[in-house]
């Protein structure tokens, strides 16, 4: 590694994250929200801006920047303005621990998984602030639903990860990737041991609860366009709405990245080694491929399913997901000791 002074290194890392968040979000918006959804619904989606509408996300962004920044009468102006920032900063912080290669990680924390899930749940605060400060009944209903739902699904999300942590024996995300890369399947080490093979229950739980964390259908009760109009986002316009919008897709990107790291082997691809220049160069590309695979599943569900009612979501989390994840942890622990 090059020896850089601390401020320079920090600035580079900040710049990298600041570039990755909008780019990742825009790629998801274009590929899935614009194109995949359109083709699923037998239409073309944007076709005018750029080749097959590739520049449409940029156009949309510019459009939002031109819109008037409305703050409703009776709104708590400071909190109202602060809420989108809280949401996007929570997303921003997750990216700090996701490894894109053996050395390509902003901060290789020993408690990386714990940190990522902890800061990820900060966005509830922003959602609550937005709903309360909007002085709108629909927003209030939406934000309270969001708070209830995000807290309920935080548990299975964390518990699903515990299985992986037990199997890998570390909480560092880089460590988990290395453990998968160096793992063996019954003595066969050719493709490593991606944890989706052993932790498939954990994987399913993680995907379902991250869907709920993202407040996407079938768990989009807090947003519920057809009844709460857009829930906590109803009163936002212009660049503040853009923050929420980017935050939503950047979180989808980040959670896909965590799922890819925990269960699909992260940046590791068989044959490319676990350190050195090749792994560092190919790492981001491999990780991106796995992220797109995960995001495809998440958005596929989103565009297909109707939504559950709030009490049904809670029942699903507390009566099904949490008990299953506890059993999963117990079984993983027993097997870890046995083998």
């Amino acid at each position, binding site marked *: 590694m090059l020896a850089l002074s601390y401020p320079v290194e920090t600035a580079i890392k900040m710049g990298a994250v600041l570039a990755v968040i909008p780019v990742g979000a825009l790629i998801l918006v274009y590929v899935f929200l614009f194109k995949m959804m359109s083709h699923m619904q037998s239409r073309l989606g944007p076709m005018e801006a750029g080749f097959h509408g590739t520049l449409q996300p940029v156009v949309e962004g510019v459009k939002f920047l031109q819109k008037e920044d409305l703050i409703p009468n009776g709104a708590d102006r400071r909190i109202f303005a602060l809420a989108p920032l809280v949401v996007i900063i929570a997303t921003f912080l997750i990216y700090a621990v996701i490894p894109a290669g053996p050395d390509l990680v902003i901060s290789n924390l020993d408690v990386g998984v714990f940190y990522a899930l902890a800061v990820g749940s900060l966005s509830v605060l922003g959602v609550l602030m937005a709903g309360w400060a909007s002085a709108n009944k629909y927003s209030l209903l939406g934000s309270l639903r969001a708070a209830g739902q995000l807290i309920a699904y935080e548990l299975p999300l964390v518990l699903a990860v515990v299985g992986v942590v037990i199997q890998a024996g570390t909480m560092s995300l880089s460590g988990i990737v290395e453990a998968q890369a160096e793992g063996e399947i019954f003595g066969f080490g050719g493709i490593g041991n991606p944890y989706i093979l052993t932790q498939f229950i954990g994987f399913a739980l993680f995907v379902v609860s991250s869907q709920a964390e993202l407040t996407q259908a079938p768990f989009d009760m807090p947003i*519920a*366009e*057809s*009844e709460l109009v857009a829930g906590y986002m109803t009163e936002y316009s212009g660049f503040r709405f853009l923050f929420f919008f980017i935050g939503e897709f950047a979180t989808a990107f980040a959670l896909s990245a965590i799922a890819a790291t925990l269960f699909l082997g992260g940046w590791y691809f068989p044959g490319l080694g676990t350190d050195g220049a090749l792994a560092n160069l190919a790492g981001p590309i491999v990780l991106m491929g796995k992220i797109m695979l995960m995001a495809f599943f998440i958005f596929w569900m989103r565009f*297909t399913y109707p*939504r*559950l*009612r709030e009490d049904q979501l809670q029942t699903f989390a507390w009566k099904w997901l949490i008990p299953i994840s506890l059993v999963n942890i117990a079984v993983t622990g027993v097997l870890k000791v046995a083998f």
Partner: protein
Amino acid sequence: MTITQHQQQAYIAGQAAEARLRFELETEGMTLNIGPQHPATHGTLRIVVRLDGEQVVWADPVCGYMHRGYEKLCEVRKYQQVTTLINRIDWLGHFANEVPFILAVEQLYDVEAPPRAQWIRTIFFEMARMANLGLFLGDMGVQLGAITPVFFAFRDREHVLNLMEAATGGRFHPNYDRVGGLKEDLPKGWVDECKEVMKRQREFCDEMEELLVGNEIFQTRTRGIGVIPQQIGLDYGLSGANIRASGVDWDLRRDRPTPLAWKEADWKVWTHPDGDSFARYWVRLQEVRESTKIVDQLLEGLPSGPVMAKMPARLRVPKGEAWVNTENPLGEMGYYVVSDGGPSGPFRCKIRSASFNNISIVPWLLRGVYVPDVITILASLYFILGDIDR
């Protein structure tokens, strides 16, 4: 039939919620205006709900935001001009609005359209039903949060509308019916094209059955929600699929003598015993299928001949009154036309539209349900704002 246990519980929950608000907590519930501008109300219906948390204590529909005064407007128009207006009552089932009015005027004038005209009227009536209910089948998905079905519905409705346009020149407002017959005959090749479209409509129904009806989430959201017991439904004057979903075997197409050609086809009236949102969806799905069958059979045996009876250029309807009701996509629709024998249009025209009666059950039905279910129950009752307010 008595009130079901679910309804009893919902009623008790509503009462308890109201008592809590008034006496125990000494707080005020939240009054939420759903509408007049709201995506779930298909236009400008306003529903005032008092909430305790997410539970509805009481709900009150407020209609009239789109009142256009059609009954009065009919009085200052000639008979031939009225069809242009009444196309816009139920704007999704456009052609079906014209038929009962024209039948009433024909009854007054004592003229009967030639058989070919009656058959084509029936075919178009059923196509209007497909265009209307097909959209409902997709729209119900949107109200439940599944955004894909509605695009399929729009896609396949387009084929029906294209057929309408080919024959009448109008996609939404065909204005095709005349006193004594039809504006003109079908264009060449229309019949074959129509058979193709009916096949596509049946495929669309299968698609919806796989995508929504079989979906577990759809079933948990609709089964046992918004149950209308048979007697309550009859008391509130529900009609159409809403009452058939409560187990009442009642269809004016079959039960009322009519010059139209329904009796020539072999079809079935579907009912469902449950009376919940799911039943209403299911009954409408089957109705679209039956409609395609009716159209197919009528196309096979379409009689030849003129489509217009001999009519004078200036229509002078003799003094009298007539009431004709038909089974429209949304339910029973009827026109009570009074003529004073003058050269101008009707002296009085009372329009009975289905949706106005269908939403009258809303205060009873929404008591004690949760806010998300308000939307699905309203969606499954299926009203068109123009049909409520006229």
